[in-house]
Each structure stands twice: as C-alpha cells, then as structure tokens.
C-alpha cells in the first residue's frame, strides 16, 4: 500500500505547524522524518492518523483520495501508529491488550482468548517479535511493551506503521533488536515512517529521509550517502558541533558526598546498595547503566524525594540525608527529572507558571505570600528566549509545546538560576541535535564556572561526551569507575551488562 500526503497544511491558531508538506510512504521502504523540536513531525503524522484534521492538502491511498476523520478510519485503511507514550492497559495481559477492541470471538460471542494468544504468537514468530502472550503489561520492560504496540498495529492488519521517536525510551540493546524488527517489517512489504532525532539511526536504518524545519520540508535525500554533519546542518539550518567542546576539568573540593547509601525501591527491594561516591565542584560525573539498575532511586534519594534506608548524603559538608526536596532546592541544587511528562511539568499550567514551578515562593517572585506575575513573566520570557523554547507566547499551556520543547523548558527552569550542583536524569531525551548541543554547552559552561554535575543517562554517547568521570551502576551498586576522556566504550558496555572483571 502506498500513501501520499500532498501539500498538507495544519495550523494551531496563528501558528503554522505544517506548511504544505508533501511526502510519500512506499511499501517495503523506511522513510525517516527528521527535524528539530517543534518542526511539525508529530503533527504531520497525527494528521495522517486521523487525530487532527488538516487545514489544507490531500491524502491519497494507492492513488485514490482518502480522508480520515478519526484514528478508527485510519486503522481501517491499514495505517498503524506507535505513539511515544504507549497506550496499553497495565493490568491486562499482552494478548488481551493486543485484541482489545477487535477481540476474536467464538460461539455466542464468547471471547476467544486462546485464539488471541495463538495469533499473538504467530505474529511474533513472523516478524521476530517474541513476547509472552500471558505476561501482564505492568510486569514487562519498556522494550517489550513497545513490541506489544507493534503487534497491536499488525494485528489490525496495518500496511503502514508510523513510529514516533521509538528509540527514546529504549536501552542500546533494545534499540538493536528494535531495528531488526523494523527491517523485518520492511522486508514483509510494510511501509514504515520513522521519526527520530538521532542522526545515526537515520543513516543506519532508513531508505529515504525528509527533513522538516519550521513546518516545511527543507531537504531530503538518500541517507546512505549523507553524513551526520550534513543531516544536522539541514535540520537546524546552521552548522552544528556534534562533539562537546570542552577543556580538561579543573575539579575543586568534593561538594556532594554519598557514603554507604542504601535506598529501598517501590516494592521494598534494595534498589541502591551501599553506594559511595562524591562529586567535586567543577566536574561532571556521569552515571552509566541500563535503565532500572537503581539510578532512579539514587537520584530520588539525593533530591529528597525518597527516604534513605541507611548511609548518608552530604552537600558542602552539611548533612542532607533527610532534607526535603525544597530544602535541597534551596541549597542551589538543580534537578532535571527523568520523566518530564509525569514529574517535570504541569501540562495544564502556562509556560510561565511552569518556569516558576519550584521557585515561585522565592523573594525574587513576590513578597510574603503574594506572587508578582510581572516579575515571573519577565524572567520566564527571558529564560524561554535564552534556552530557545519554541513558543509564540509564555501564556500558552505547556501541553501545546512539542515534546522536545517541553524538555527544554525543564532544562531552562533548572539551569537558568544560580546553582552549585546539577543533578540531571536523561537531560536531553527527545530533543534535537541543535538543542542537545546547547544544553550540553550549558552544562559544560556551568562546570567551568565551578558547578558540579551528576548526570544519569542510558545514552552511553551522552555519558561519554559529557563526563569527566564515569561511574557504572549495575543492580544497585557502583561496579566500576572510569576516567572520562578516552575510556574504552566496550569496557564500559561490559560493566553495564554486569560482566565482572
């Protein structure tokens, strides 16, 4: 099945999110969609999927005009979409989720789960998507949940599958497996749309790439003959530095000291097990590790969000083991949380309100209990401009920002005030190369000004690029320490996988 989108225009008020964009999705081909945050990629796909109605342009399926008023129409026409935020019922099994809404039924309309399970296994076998049909969604890792989403689309006979930033939530190993799956889909003749910010992935996986900027197509080509630098420049519209420029660190004395730290996880299990380390002023310490090895709990303990079972945390000599999040914040510690949707922003609040979310009570924003909106607004506008959060006005709800711009908003809020320590989880998840460059530069600049930084990332590239010192976390422990520059990636990878030396 071939789908052509011709001259699609989509406006939100005055804002033109898609400006006469055309593209063709061919069977047996992987089309890459590349573009900076807010370029209109998600919007374009939502138009195709029937979530938004276009203000102009046409859609053709196999040369015949088509229109989708809702996702139901799009699904019926053979279009499937795997959203960045999965739409699964956590307490249902894999098979139940897959058949939800289109359940196979036996005599007397009885739900035929046995057939459902078989069908899930068949699809799995056909495309290398093995998942246990009886596992509960809440019990399986993100990578498998994504497979379930893919199986769901295939179960509904999708001929076109759209992936919106599918790799952002995956570990490197899961990414490899995911690519295998996408290739087998392509080989089975499906048309694939693949949205990402990662240039390497475009080059490795796609057959054709379209670059969007400002809602328009600004370039396209064969990624096999394009370099990352070329793609980055096309995307951002200016040359981008893909490696972080930094001079050697000049660390001062230790400001954050963690010793013998033990933290319990959600289920009472030991998530952080006897961890010792320190972060010095003027250095960036990166914590590498596969997701789910205690990094989340470690960060929550340091920032006062989770209670400490044993051990101590001190900051500039002061014991902060039992500090509240507000007390930690007041010590000039910035925190960029790992899940921006859930804990970083309030999507119904305006951008200005979100910018003040953890400092609204400070003297600079009012006197006593009163808030001074002129001050808050002025500061927000300044920071939004400086950190390049793309929005027409700071009075819009944060939910109107594109995914990457929401992340930039959180970074702007945390890094714009005067700070002594940065604690960041996945600081650049889902943002484009131009913005990654900018946020990395900010972190490095802060380091050069004597700020300490603790960065948690599952992107080994990011850890390698930023860190002066790398700690590898595995099953709640820090299993190995590496020097920042020039360490062997394979060795770090092995430590992450728990291969002991």
């Amino acid at each position, binding site marked *: 099945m071939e789908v052509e989108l011709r001259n699609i225009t989509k406006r*939100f*008020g*005055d*804002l*033109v*999110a*898609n*400006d006469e964009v055309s593209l063709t999705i061919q069977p047996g081909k992987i089309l890459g969609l590349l573009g*900076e945050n*807010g*370029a*209109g990629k998600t919007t374009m796909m939502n138009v195709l999927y029937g979530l938004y109605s276009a203000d102009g342009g046409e859609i053709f399926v196999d040369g015949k005009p088509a229109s989708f008023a809702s996702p139901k129409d799009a699904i019926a026409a053979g279009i499937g979409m795997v959203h960045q935020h999965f739409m699964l019922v956590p307490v249902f099994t894999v098979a139940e989720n897959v058949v939800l809404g289109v359940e196979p039924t036996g005599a007397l309309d009885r739900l035929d789960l046995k057939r459902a399970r078989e069908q899930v296994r068949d699809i799995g076998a056909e495309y290398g998507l093995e998942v246990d049909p009886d596992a509960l969604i809440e019990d399986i890792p993100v990578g498998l949940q994504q497979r379930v989403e893919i199986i769901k689309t295939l179960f509904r006979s999708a001929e076109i599958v759209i992936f919106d930033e599918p790799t952002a939530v995956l570990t490197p190993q899961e990414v490899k497996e995911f690519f295998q799956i996408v290739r087998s889909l392509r080989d089975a003749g499906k048309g694939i749309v693949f949205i990402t910010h990662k240039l390497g992935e475009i080059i490795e996986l796609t057959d054709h790439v379209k670059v969007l*900027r*400002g*809602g*328009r197509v600004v370039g396209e080509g064969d990624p096999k003959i394009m370099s990352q630098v070329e793609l980055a420049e096309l995307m*951002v*519209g*200016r040359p981008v530095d893909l490696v972080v420029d930094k001079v050697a660190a000049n660390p001062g004395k230790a400001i954050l000291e963690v010793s013998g730290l033990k933290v319990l996880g959600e289920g009472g299990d030991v998530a952080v097990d006897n961890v010792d380390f320190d972060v010095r002023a003027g250095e960036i310490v990166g914590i590498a590790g596969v997701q789910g090895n205690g990094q989340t709990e470690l960060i929550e303990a340091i920032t006062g*969000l989770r209670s400490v079972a044993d051990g101590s945390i001190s900051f500039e000599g002061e014991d902060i083991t039992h500090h*509240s*999040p*507000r007390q*930690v*914040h007041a010590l000039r510690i910035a925190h960029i*949380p790992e899940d921006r949707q*859930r*804990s*970083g*922003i*309030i*999507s*119904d*609040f305006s951008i200005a*309100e979100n910018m003040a*979310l*953890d400092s*609204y*009570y400070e003297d600079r924003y*009012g006197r006593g*209990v*009163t*808030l001074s*909106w002129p001050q808050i*607004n*002025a500061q*927000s*506008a*300044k920071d*939004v*401009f400086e950190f*390049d959060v*793309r*929005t*027409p*006005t*700071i*009075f*819009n709800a944060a939910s109107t920002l594109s995914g990457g711009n929401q992340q930039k908003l959180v970074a702007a809020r945390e890094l714009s005030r005067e700070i002594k320590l940065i604690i960041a989880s996945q600081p650049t998840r889902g943002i484009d190369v*131009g913005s990654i460059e900018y946020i990395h530069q900010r972190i490095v600049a802060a380091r050069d000004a004597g700020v300490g930084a603790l960065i948690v990332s599952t992107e080994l590239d990011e850890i390698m690029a930023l860190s002066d010192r790398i700690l590898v976390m595995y099953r709640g422990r820090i299993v190995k320490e590496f020097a920042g520059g020039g360490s062997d990636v394979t060795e770090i990878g092995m430590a992450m996988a728990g291969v002991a030396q």
Partner: protein
Amino acid sequence: MTDSQTGVGSAKKYSVSELLTNPNEVDLKTLLLLPAMAFMTALFLGGVIMFVSGVDFTNIAFSYRALLVGSVGSVFALSETLVAAAPLIIAGLSVAIGFRSGLFNIGAEGQILTGGMAALAVGFSFPELSIWVHLPLSLLAGAIVGAVWGGIAGWLRAVTGAHEVISTIMLNFIALRLVDFSLKTDFFQKTGRNDPISKSVLDSALLPDLLTWIDPQLRVNAGILIAFLVVFLIGWLLFRTTIGFEFRAVGANPDAARYAGIRIGWTFTATMAVAGALGGLTGGVQVLGVLERASPGFSSGIGFEAIAVALLGRAHPTGVLFAGLLFGALEAGGRQMQVDTNVGIDLITIIQSLVIVFVAAPILIKSLYPFAFREHAK
C-alpha cells in the same frame, strides 16, 4: 542571527516582548459561553418536559415569564435573587477551591451547619458589644469552626489516605445530628421552648439590611457584599499567592508538584481548611442574615447545590459568581412561578440538573451549537 531564528511557523523564534504578549485574554468568553449555551438548552428542554406533561403553550410561556419577572423583573425580585445567591456563591467557592486542588468537597453542608452554629453562639452571646465588633466576631467564629470541620477531612486524607468524599459525607451526618443535639441543650435552645429552636441572634450581630430604607420588604442584606468580597479574595488567593499556586499545582499534577517541593499532605489539609472556612462563613451568612436563629437542618441543601454551582462556574471565582447569581435567580423566579402558575417548583430543579448535565458534557453542547464554538475549536 541564524536562519533558524527567522523561520516561519513553529520553528520561528519569538522575541522576548512577543513572548510576553498574552493572546488568551478572551478568558471571560470561554468561561461563560459554554454555561450560557447549556442554560439555554436546559430552558428549552424544560419547556419540552412541561409540554409532555400536559402544560399547554400559553402556560409554558406564562411560566417562563413568571420565572423572569420573579428573578429580575422588579427591585423586590432582584433583592430575592441576591438573598438566594449569596450563600450559593460562597459555598460554591468552597467546593470550587477543593476542585482546584483535586479534592471533591461534598462536605459544604456539614461545614455550613457547624459554622452556622458557631456564628449563632457568638451572635446570641455578648449583648454588650457594638456591631463593629460583634458581627465580624460572629462571622469569624463561623469561618474558624468550618475550617476545623473541613480541615479534619483534609488532614485525614493527608495522613491516612482516607478519601475526602467518604469523610466529608460522614462529617455531614455528624454535623446534622450535632445540630439536633445542640438545639436541645440549654445553651442553644430558646428559653421556654420545648421544640428544637435556638435563641435568636442579637441585633448587634445581624447582617444589616441594605435596602429597607426603600421598602421594608426588601430582604437583601450585607451577605451579598460578603459574597462579592469572597469572590475577590478567593480569586486573589488562587491566582496571586503562593498558597493558591500550590493548590493549583497539586490539583493539576501532584507528581510534578511533589518534585517541585510542594508538600502534598499539607496542601490537602490547607485546601480543606479554606474550603471549610468558606462553608462555615456560608453558615454564618445564612444565620446572621436570613434565618436569625437555627432550627434542625437549617442548611437546607445549600451545600449540595453549591456543588452544582461550582461545576457550572468551572471552579473559577468569576464563573462561580455568575453561576451563583443564576441559581439564585432560578430559585427566586421559581417561587414566583409556583405562585403565578400551577407549574411546580420541581421544574426549577429539573432545569438546574439539566444545566449541570450539559456543562458536564461539553462535547454535547459543542456539537449542538458548532457555530458558537467554531473559532475555539482548534
């Protein structure tokens, strides 16, 4: 500046002054359009219901005319509307502020009762005080006791996780029986009476009438001024103070609020205390302005109507003000309708309920009147 800063559409980089211009100042319109449409639809359906139940067209027209005349048709009608609206507005805000923090305060009724009793107790004690001291003191007593009554539910939620819907309903029952019981005690019961009627509020604690100098029949009293003041104060609290910021943050995304250092439990308790204070103040306004004494169940369902008012006003102070005025008008007009025609006051309850159903189902209203909402539909 580079290309990316001068692009079109979404990727355009806006200047600081552009960022600071607020395009959303049509706020009032979006706040009022939906309820207005819902109201019109409910009136229409009310007519249909009358027709189906055998009322002919002339009588339907006559009823609605009575409704209009009885609510806004004369100074007397306006006065009655305001008398009915004052407690609805204040209690509506009590429920609305709960919604803002993500709490459902079903307990306004109990808060009205306990607060009303406190206002009453201060109001019939202390005969020597001047009105400038006595009246504020009585109102304050109502607000404080209401705050404690509401605060209990908030505190239970914060500390034990007990859901406020359950606890406020239970507190309502307790308050109801507590009033019955108190009215039989020597302290409250009117001397020489055997039935549960309280002593009367002293003149120095009564809310002054506003228009009796024109006509002694005009019952409108300073309660409505208090209601206006409270609308302003709650608007200020919600949108111009750190406390309101915390309430709204917790209501909109408790997880992010916690990450931002806001104490959720404290916010729940504080919200319910403020909500309770408003409930208690409502009781005070009723007792000191309209009833002048207490009898069993004197809250007469205001606390439940307040839920409807808060929903209709979309938990926004200005919205609640208009919703309270509308419901007050319906009540005053409904009484007139009862007198002038044989259409029962039940119809008013039906119309009120329909309004709520339509407000709760915005998609229905939007699809009924697509033209009115077109520019908003993005």
